[in-house]
């Protein structure tokens, strides 16, 4: 029981409740259940990439290229429908594109042995550039969208499953799968161990490169899913669909408890953090703060949260040392 209370996820949940309560006081209409549920459509894509990103970070890597992968997968889908490729095949092609982006990242990282941040920074440009070029080739110009999707596809953006928006259901289902994968399977254990010590993992015969590659591929795949969901929601595929997800998604993973040094993190934490960030943006907007400022303030939230965690760790260390000193003086004086 004590453990449950002191878990970071519990703190996050409390943060979410406090946040909703404050916005509810400022603007009572904000706390309408329908609003809260349908509001998720505006930020659920952040969560869809933040969840697999958590895996990457736990395994000791980082990926910032997903922001472009979202756009690239969407554009590839758009180009495919432009050439009247059947819908299922277009979707499949987009998903394969996303997965290949992840595979590409992992391959470069393992070939060059260069830090993942740098490599994915490069591919952030490359994927965005590829998407821009691809959309330019079909005459959609730089940042204009490709539209005219089949009706069935657009409908998904507004579809409901069990009374919930389809994208939210998709997000929760993804979270369920990843929670199981990370916390209850052999693969998840390997992800944690690789992130904690790559060399100890190598000595224990754990296939480090393979485990890390899978996390990048899953991230690419999920970025493609987010790209498709966003295209359906907006009715058009654009290159910059994902650019606004970069900072909030990394924030969600870190706020959710993922250690940038690897080896620590939780899917549940990222899930809750996504809602904290998403509702923060919406609540600020509902309170009359412009959307630009609210999205920027999520950065402030990250700083505060991390500083708080760091501060509490320092405090705990400090207390431990004082306790030790006390017990030691007792020991010394006892000895004399």
């Amino acid at each position, binding site marked *: 029981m004590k453990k449950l209370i002191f878990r970071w996820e519990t703190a996050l949940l409390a943060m979410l409740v406090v946040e909703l309560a404050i916005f509810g006081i400022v603007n009572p209409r904000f706390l309408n259940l329908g609003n809260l549920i349908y509001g998720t459509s505006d930020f659920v894509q952040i969560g869809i990439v933040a969840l697999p990103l958590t895996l990457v970070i736990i395994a000791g890597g980082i990926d910032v290229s997903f922001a472009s992968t979202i756009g690239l997968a969407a554009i590839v889908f758009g180009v495919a429908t432009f050439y009247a490729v059947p819908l299922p095949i277009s979707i499949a092609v987009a998903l394969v594109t996303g997965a290949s982006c992840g595979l590409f990242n992992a391959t470069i990282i393992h070939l060059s042995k260069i830090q993942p941040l740098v490599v994915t*920074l490069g591919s952030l440009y490359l994927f965005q550039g*590829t998407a821009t070029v691809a959309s330019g080739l079909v005459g959609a110009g730089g940042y204009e969208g490709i539209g005219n999707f089949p009706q069935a596809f657009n409908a998904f953006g507004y579809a409901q499953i069990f009374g919930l928006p389809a994208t939210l259901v998709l997000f929760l289902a993804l979270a369920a799968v990843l929670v199981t994968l990370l916390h209850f399977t052999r693969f998840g254990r390997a992800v944690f161990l690789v992130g904690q010590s790559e060399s100890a993992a190598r000595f224990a015969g754990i296939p480090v490169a393979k485990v890390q590659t899978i996390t990048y591929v899953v991230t690419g795949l999920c970025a493609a899913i987010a790209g498709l969901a966003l295209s359906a929601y907006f009715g058009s595929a654009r290159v910059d669909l994902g650019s606004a997800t970069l900072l909030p998604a990394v924030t969600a993973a870190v706020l959710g408890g993922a250690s940038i040094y690897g080896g620590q993190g939780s899917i549940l934490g990222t899930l809750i953090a996504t809602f904290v960030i998403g509702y923060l943006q919406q609540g600020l907007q509902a309170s009359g703060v412009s959307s630009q400022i609210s999205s920027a303030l999520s950065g402030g939230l990250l700083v505060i949260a991390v500083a708080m965690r760091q501060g509490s760790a320092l405090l705990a260390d400090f207390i431990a040392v004082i306790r030790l000193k006390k017990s030691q003086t007792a020991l010394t004086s006892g000895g004399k």
Partner: protein
Amino acid sequence: MLDLFARNRVATLLVILVVAYAAIGAAAPGYLSGATASTVLASSLVLMLISLGTMVVIVTRNIDVSSGSVLGLSAAVLGLSLNAGVGLPLAVALCMLTGVAAGAFNGLMVAYLGIPSIVATLGTLGLYRGIMLVMTGGRWIEDLPQDLKALAGNLGLGFSVLTVVVVAIIGGLWLFLRRTRFGRFFYAVGDNRAAAHHLGVPVRRVQFSAFVATGACAALASIVYSAQIGFIPNQAGNGVELKAIAVNVLGGVSLLGGTGSVAGVVAAVIFITSIDSALVFLKIPAYWNDFIAGALLLSVLLLDGRIRQVIDHRIRARRYAVHDRTPVVEGRDQTSKALEAGL
């Protein structure tokens, strides 16, 4: 050969640059002109300042992704105070102060609170941009006074006051990092933090100073930016931090800290800016820019990584070869016998 390219990134970049210039010059004869040179120089200034600032932090084995927002924030301070009737010198001072304070906050979190630099600066990337937007109310700052814009005015040969300042900073930074005791500490901290601590280097103070320097550079970049463009949009400086990191990597600054030279960064900035200007000159559609930049960066990274591995492998082989040297007497005998037999 490999060693040369790996050790001497500046030379490598210059060679590629000369080849590229020659190729573009052959394809479009009007390109190689004084006008191009002065355009490249002028448009490289903002990236130059941000990249140099970022380099100082990277050398100490940290990273700063907030400098684009620091640029925006200090530009807003500059623009707002100018438009409120504050004189240019005081406005510039306030702007610099903002940059230094922003950098100091980053430094405080990283050096003294122990927050990983990527996380801390990712947070302030959003935070500083947010403060800027609150200050400007989301509106662009226009109608900047003429004396600010005059700073970017041509003094001849494409040099402006700002260019002179930037060149002075390049020289000063080079001297500081290479020739001063405190400057060498930056490399030491990035190279092996524990060793630096052991040898009495004030590790935290060095890390903190690096972030402050980055903030100051970003503030200076914001002055250049405002003077050159003449107004301050909301997204001023957006994304320049990623470009600066890319430039650093291209210029041979290792993200693992401890290596990198001012010359390499300067060469890389000129290189990147030249490519951009060449694309414009060759009338290649703008949508190729990101693709080419990304492809270029990744190829350099891949090449660089492979070269490093080859060199590491050689160093390792050399280290282990020592054991083969131990049966010296025996070995020498055999060689001499073999030589005798051959003779």
